């Protein structure tokens, strides 16, 4: 019979990484992706949306760092994520809506954007707590972004002498698919663990949440590099 063993997880974890190391790796990858966003030539102008999203992420993480690490305002920093989640949804869905060749997509984008913002406000202020992890908010926008990114992946229009791997939207689509799928799983496990073993929950958070974030920022960096190479040779 398979038995979960927090002891083994603890051992593997402490032997290789620490929660803070994972956090710093995450911050470095985010910063690199953001810098690449500003530096790379953009064959696809919609990438500017992702560039400004990364900039918003860097600003949010910088404030979170100051609040959580320096000022030790531990639960209060979650408030920033409650603000960041709907902003991220708006940027990401706007980016994908530009890559989906359906006339009704724009209408869907505006309708869903309004709905998501309202649901997030409800989940943060009424049904939840602004000083706790915005798991439900992430699940709502994640569900829709998975749909947006999968649709965008299937909408890539073929171009002469271009493999699917050279399209920035492919890498960004894959990145967000992995990130939000991982987030669903993370939120599920985190919800189960947080009440019984908060230490293990924090470590799993570092593995899964920061892990999928790392994958997302690596994918976005690849997308910027693809865009730069395309612009350079065209």
């Amino acid at each position, binding site marked *: *019979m*398979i*038995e*979960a063993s*927090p002891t083994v997880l603890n051992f593997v974890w402490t032997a290789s990484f620490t929660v803070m190391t994972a956090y710093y790796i995450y911050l470095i990858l985010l910063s690199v992706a953001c810098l690449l966003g500003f530096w790379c030539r953009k064959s696809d102008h919609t990438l500017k949306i992702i560039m400004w999203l990364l900039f918003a992420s860097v600003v949010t993480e910088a404030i979170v760092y100051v609040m959580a690490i320096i000022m030790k305002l531990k639960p209060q920093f979650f408030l920033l994520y409650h603000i960041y989640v709907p902003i991220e949804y708006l940027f990401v869905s706007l980016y994908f809506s530009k890559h989906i060749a359906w006339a009704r997509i724009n209408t869907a984008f505006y309708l869903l954007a309004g709905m998501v913002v309202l649901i997030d406000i409800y989940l943060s202020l009424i049904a939840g707590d602004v000083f706790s992890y915005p798991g439900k908010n992430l699940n709502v926008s994640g569900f829709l972004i998975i749909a947006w990114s*999968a649709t965008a*992946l*299937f909408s*890539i*229009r*073929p*171009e*002469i002498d271009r493999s*699917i791997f050279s399209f920035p939207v*492919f890498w960004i*689509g*894959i990145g967000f*698919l*992995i990130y939000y*799928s*991982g987030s*669903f*799983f993370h939120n*599920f*496990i985190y919800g*189960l*663990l947080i009440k*019984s*073993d908060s230490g*293990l929950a924090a470590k799993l958070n570092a593995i899964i949440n920061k892990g999928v974030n790392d994958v997302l920022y690596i994918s976005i960096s690849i997308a910027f590099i693809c865009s730069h190479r395309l612009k350079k040779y065209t």
Partner: protein
Amino acid sequence: MLSSPEEIYLAALSTALIMLVLVAIVIVAIVKYQRRYRLHMEEVMAMKQTYNEELLKTKLEISEETLDKVSNEIHDNIGQMLALLKINLFTINVQDKVSTTKKIAKAKEVIVQVIQDVRNLSHTLSPEYLSNFTLVEWIAFEVDLVKSSSAMQVTFEQVGQQRIVDPQRKLIIIRIIQEGISNIIKHAKASNIKITIIFENELKIELVDDGMGFSQNQKHTGQGLSNMKLRSKIIGGEIEIQSENMDGTSIRLTVPYE
């Protein structure tokens, strides 16, 4: 605590499901892209082939048209002048010095004119000569030919700063204009043609005549209009034709520069 078998199974199952769905989405997206890419390439190849075939056909038609015009020019102009020269020289009476001097002077004039016309014609027959023309020069050349060979009044106007047009596109555009002019001469019974070339974001060419026009429902048995439409399509342009019975015809060609 995550220790009950149900929770572990649920966690493992959900992870496996998420991974499976992710992998499936990515694989299906790649396969679908490859399929669309193959179809796209087939379409592009077919379009390239049509383009090359049409370009070759256009070149042949332009050559035929040029030869036809040269043949008419030799018959109607040079032939007439040489006949005049022949009469002049054959009727010289060397005893009548005054008349002979006049006839020789006239013969000299005719010879100079014939030499000039033959030189112009030889230029027309040279493939480089016309292809070195800009689009505006070429249309002006066509307008001059129509003016010299028919009783129609043809006006040509340029709007905007002239822009360079790709040589292959230029050939196809000229052929479309020739076809349009030829249709007007053959069928429209017009007395005036106005040609306007407009250099805007896109190149626009208008051919307007005051002929008998045709009903939009009227069936056309000739290839003229369909050839013009096909040619404009292969260079990414479009043709708009407006015509009413007894109210002339207006043809507007819109083509991107590249």
